[in-house]
């Protein structure tokens, strides 16, 4: 009976959640559009120049300006922007001439690939490290985690990236260099998902797959390290909090093994806030890997947006920003859902 009620409750919960989510998404995106749009208009870069170049004769310049709609009032431009954006049309990128959506579809998988691997490393190494550090508070492993974290917070990522390349690629030759794939393999497969690892694997191109793995290893480990630094420290602090709870003592009183107490009872509870932390760090990797992408010649979204911004390619900037904003909100929702899944107290 209560089970049935639970289901109905869950359904209602999902429904209200969805409605709320759509509202949140809509307002956030509108806010994002507004901020980006007005930034785009106050940036002292002439977007027409990006299209026609410096040496274009005046009439070519004028025509391009009109085509961009820059001669209309600001408010009108904004309305047009929003109208189009709602239908998923972010216009064409000036720099690549492709529709911005296409460009994002091309660059986002690269970023996704890197960020996902980085987060996986961060989670699968960072969480156990954090747990161990909390359990052995004050021991060498705690110090190690602390040090890893502090170094991770303090080292410039581009420096570490180049040094990594120098050591593991140039000197030791353990991994492949910058880029996603050697040219030899570039045309052995057809891009489907855009994630090279998946595409090559699905098409049975094992050589290409291993080559891609070798390419992605270093940047992924680098991002993984940064996410690990964060996740392990947060895990540690959440675990310390949980380990001090009464129910942990109760679990020990029951005569459960320490492993079960820690990994099943305490971590299961620490997982609740941890989900949010992991989602946040994932979002950060998705948006913040511009520097890594530059160093590793990784044709990702971060580089795309930065490059567009420097060239006043506002369509691309807006599109990219909206995508990242959407992903951010989606991740928030996901972590929210997971939160509810993991924590029965929040299910009403």
């Amino acid at each position, binding site marked *: 009976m209560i089970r049935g009620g639970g289901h109905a409750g869950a359904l209602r919960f999902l429904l209200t959640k969805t409605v709320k989510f759509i509202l*949140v998404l809509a*307002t*956030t995106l509108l*806010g*994002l559009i507004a*901020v*980006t749009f007005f*930034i*785009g208009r*106050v*940036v*002292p*870069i002439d977007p027409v120049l990006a299209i026609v170049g410096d040496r274009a004769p005046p009439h070519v310049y004028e025509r391009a300006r009109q085509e961009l709609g820059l001669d209309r009032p600001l408010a009108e431009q904004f309305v047009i922007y929003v109208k189009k954006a709602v239908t998923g049309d972010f216009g064409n990128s000036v720099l690549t001439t492709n529709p911005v959506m296409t460009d994002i579809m091309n660059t986002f998988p690269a970023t996704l690939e890197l960020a996902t691997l980085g987060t996986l490393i961060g989670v699968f190494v960072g969480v156990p490290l954090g747990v161990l550090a909390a359990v052995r508070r004050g021991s060498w492993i705690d110090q190690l985690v*602390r040090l890893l974290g*502090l*170094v991770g*917070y*303090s*080292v*410039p*990522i*581009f*420096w570490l990236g*180049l040094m990594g390349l*120098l050591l593991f690629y*140039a000197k030791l030759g353990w991994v492949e260099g910058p880029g996603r794939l050697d040219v030899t393999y570039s045309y052995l497969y057809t891009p489907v998902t855009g994630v090279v690892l998946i595409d090559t694997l699905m098409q049975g191109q094992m050589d290409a797959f291993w080559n891609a793995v070798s390419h992605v290893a270093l940047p992924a480990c680098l991002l993984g390290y940064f996410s690990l630094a964060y996740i392990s420290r947060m895990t540690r*602090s959440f675990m*310390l*909090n949980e380990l*001090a709870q009464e129910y942990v003592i109760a679990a020990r009183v029951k005569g459960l093994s320490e492993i079960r107490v820690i990994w099943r009872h305490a971590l299961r509870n620490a997982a609740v806030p941890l989900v949010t932390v992991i989602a946040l760090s994932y979002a*950060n990797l998705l*948006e*913040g890997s*511009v*520097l890594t992408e530059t160093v590793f010649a990784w044709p990702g979204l*971060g580089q795309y*947006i*930065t490059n567009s*911004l*420097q060239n006043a390619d506002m369509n691309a*900037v807006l599109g*990219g*920003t909206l995508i*990242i*904003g959407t992903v*951010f*909100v989606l991740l928030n929702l996901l972590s929210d859902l997971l939160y509810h899944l993991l924590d029965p107290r929040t299910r009403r």
Partner: protein
Amino acid sequence: MTGAPLVQQPSGARAWLLSPEPASRWQARLGRFYLGWRAFSKNPLAVLGLGVVLLLILVAIFADLIAPYSPIIGGNLRTERLLPPSAAHWFGTDDLARDIFSRVVYGSRTTLWVVMLVAIIATPIGLAMGTVAGYLGGWVDTVLMRITDIFLAFPRLILALAFVAALGPGIDNAIIAIAITSWPPYARIARAETLTIRNSDFIAAVKLQGASTPRIILGHVVPLCLSSLIVRVTLDMAGIILTAAGLGFLGLGAQPPMPEWGAMVATGRNYLIDQWWVAAMPGAAIFVVSLGFNLLGDGLRDVLDPKAAK
């Protein structure tokens, strides 16, 4: 007057500080401070962090005295470019024949400026947004938090880039950009903290004494949010320095020839493999200072935020 009596009765001074019956506001405050300091100083890493930060401040103040060369005017381009570290140039010279040590020393000013300004701009914004939203609740909360979310959902570096692009490159604008992008997490922390405080009995008690809302927020809520915020800001300092460096790296931070560590590393990356010192020296400076702030933040957390230290 000699120092002898004091030396002989160190417990006297400590007893005074720790007196359970302080005789004045000052004694109470000092005692509290001393207690904090004692907890703090038990953590050698935190003291090290404080040392680094103090060193940064001292170096910034006395840059003129410390730096052996001009940070801006270089030597002979033909003979003094890209010299490795030596007795004459401790950290070597850069591509424009400038002494890197002197530039690092002067760069501490920029770094300090960045750190201070961001702290002064971002913390109050975050604090105000968070406490007001948390305390008032209702639609004020909804509106303020939605704004916060929007800024939070914005790719941070991109927002900073955009602001710098809009305001024009330069260190001050970079700082404003960083400040604008770093307040949302502070607002969230302040709000969360406020939510736990706002229903507490001591807030109800001042309400019952007829205190106005601004008075409650400023006098009673803010001081309690401040400590976790200070900790968070200190821990963020490293990230802020690195973001400034990242902006410098993208050419949007400090203006040349102003010595800014991030921009220096950015130049140095062109010589990374053979003239390693050009990037490594300012890079090491960034690292040390970030580490210092992190260690300090960690230590402060133990002192100010016993919850997190558990």
